[in-house]
């Protein structure tokens, strides 16, 4: 049981707070939805699902608050049922946490999600939550993380202190799933550098502040590396990928300068593990042209570049995939009643001949429905680029969500 002590603390906190529940405001909301993916080609392996992948999901949110909102509890479970990939059928507690707001401090206790960073195409500095790798391809869906977070608001910025008891392993597509490499990641073969394994208590401290046009953030993190090393292993007559989670020490920096129509963005990390130390950066800008052709629509143009010091040495190393990549994007927001938006993006690996084209579009239907369109097209002729293994996985996904 991951973080057993942590759950005990949570239970005690819950009991000690429940005396005041009588005066609680309760509300709920959430969404249910269905996603249909259509893959243009058959998978590279005959075990993989064919052209169609269907799934359903539910993501309710329950919220209790008292003391005029100074105390609150939020519970947000998530469940997806995937008809074609058992590994993608999964249940997660995205949030189950208690918040207390003091004068110039906040205490957050429980399972939560916390986002750090400013860039759009890669989220380098965002490391607290594990990626829900199976739920969405862009890696923006995260698993809930157990944490105790004390947030101190000072004149010179906000200081967040974190204790993170317990670790979450990344989710991966199963044998029948698409958007994976030739070998399946086996969730029963997981090893850790720390003898505490999943129970290792991670810690982090972050400072963030807004000074004029600049928004700044800097942090230190010590604990289990969220990115597993995937190692090919023979199990019986089968080749699989096992996961190895090392310990890491990381510092990160994120800066955004908001200058007129331009947002200038910069993220950088330095990560130290027992195997290697490296630097990586993601930098670029977002320009918005307001009132396209005298209409209410806005057109955003985005450009970002990724650099990773691991690519300078061995071009087969893990970080070499992001050593010199360029991302271009264009976001059209109609600003209409239905909030219609279209994002067109292309990512190009400038060292390994590999490109990815993406389209993300969304529109509200009526008052409570929303349609999302998601297209990914991979092109690669270089076996060292990860997208080489996704070259048969071009897909179009349509999601319909109902909000309540």
């Amino acid at each position: 049981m991951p973080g057993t002590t942590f759950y005990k603390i949570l239970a005690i906190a819950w009991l000690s707070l429940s005396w005041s529940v009588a005066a609680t405001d309760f509300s709920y909301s959430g969404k249910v939805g269905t996603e249909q993916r259509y893959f243009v080609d058959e998978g590279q392996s005959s075990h993989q699902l064919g052209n169609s992948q269907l799934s359903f999901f539910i993501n309710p949110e329950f919220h209790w608050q008292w003391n005029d909102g100074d105390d609150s509890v939020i519970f947000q479970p998530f469940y997806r049922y995937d008809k074609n990939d058992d590994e993608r059928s999964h249940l997660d507690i995205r949030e189950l946490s208690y918040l207390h707001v003091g004068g110039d401090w906040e205490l957050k206790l429980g399972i939560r999600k916390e986002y750090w960073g400013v860039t759009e195409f890669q989220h380098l500095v965002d490391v607290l939550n594990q990626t829900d790798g199976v739920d969405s391809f862009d890696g923006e869906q995260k698993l809930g993380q157990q944490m105790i977070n004390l947030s101190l608001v000072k004149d010179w910025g906000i200081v967040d202190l974190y204790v993170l008891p317990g670790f979450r392993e990344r989710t991966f597509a199963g044998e029948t799933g698409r958007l994976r490499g030739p070998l399946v990641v086996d969730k029963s073969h997981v090893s850790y550098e720390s003898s505490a394994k999943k129970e290792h208590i991670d810690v982090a401290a972050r400072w963030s502040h807004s000074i004029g046009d600049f928004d700044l953030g800097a942090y230190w993190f010590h604990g289990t590396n969220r990115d597993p090393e995937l190692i090919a292993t023979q199990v019986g007559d089968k080749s699989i990928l096992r996961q190895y989670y090392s310990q890491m020490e990381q510092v990160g920096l994120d800066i955004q300068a908001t200058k007129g129509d331009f947002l200038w963005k910069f993220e950088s990390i330095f990560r130290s593990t027992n195997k290697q130390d490296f630097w990586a950066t993601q930098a670029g800008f977002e320009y918005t042209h307001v009132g396209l052709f005298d209409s209410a629509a806005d057109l955003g143009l985005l450009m970002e570049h990724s650099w990773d010091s691991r690519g300078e040495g061995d071009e087969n190393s893990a970080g070499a995939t992001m050593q010199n990549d360029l991302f271009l994007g264009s976001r059209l927001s109609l600003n209409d009643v239905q909030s219609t938006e279209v994002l067109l993006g292309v990512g190009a690996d400038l060292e390994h001949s590999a490109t990815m084209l993406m389209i993300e579009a969304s529109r509200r239907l009526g008052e409570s429905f929303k349609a999302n369109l998601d297209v990914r097209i991979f092109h690669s002729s270089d076996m060292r680029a990860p997208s080489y293994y996704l070259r048969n996985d071009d897909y179009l996904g349509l999601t319909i969500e109902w909000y309540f």
Partner: protein
Amino acid sequence: MKLTITIKAILAAMTISATSANVLAATPAQQGMDIFTEVKSRDIGWGDSKADMHMILSNQHGQKSIREVKIKSLEQQNDGDKSLTVFDKPRDVKGTAFLSYSHTTGPDDQWLYMPAIKRVKRISSRNKSGPFMGSEFAFEDFSSFELSKYRYNFLGEEQYNGKECFKVEQFPVDQNSGYTRRIVWVDKENYLEQKVEFYDRKNALLKTLTYTDYQQFSGKFWRALSLNMVNHQNGKSTELKWMNYAFNTGLTDKDFNRNALKRKN
């Protein structure tokens, strides 16, 4: 030669009237400015407020769409106000929050919180002319009124809706405004805006805003509980209903920082 002297004389007269408006007959610019100085001064000292706002968007076919937000505001001494807007409807944007520090000079500071990915994003405040949540209200129509945001021109006195009003033209100083000018009807009794006409960048009449159901709070501060914006060019309109207004609720700066953006209430 004669012309130069005349211009100099006019300029001199304008300078005098600007500095000592009470002594000499004021220019239309000064008169307009004086009226809005009075409008502003009657609304100083409100401290902080909380309110719910409902928007009813209607298109030319009469189809309606509802928006619901909660707004907290905090008055600032010697600068623009701070405000926090939390979206409740449409449901897909529930929990989305918008934090704004408006400034008397220079661009406002604005942050947006996206609850689905827990991300706080600083956004450009240049987009003043864009529609707020698909309504006929632009972002700039919600920003706090500051004297320095306009040049003024007093047009005269006129009756509107049975009230004696001043009619004043306002020219936005900011190049990014979607308007060339606004014409505002302010009643003589309480110095409250009764009607505003908005002229687009081509100086054509774009929208008319009317205020009804003014109520007084804390024995001093007036707020219109109903506003109606009609767009003459696209035939759409947006009705705004304010509810549950409360003043001096004890809000402080701590309710308007980036942590507050992520809270649910």
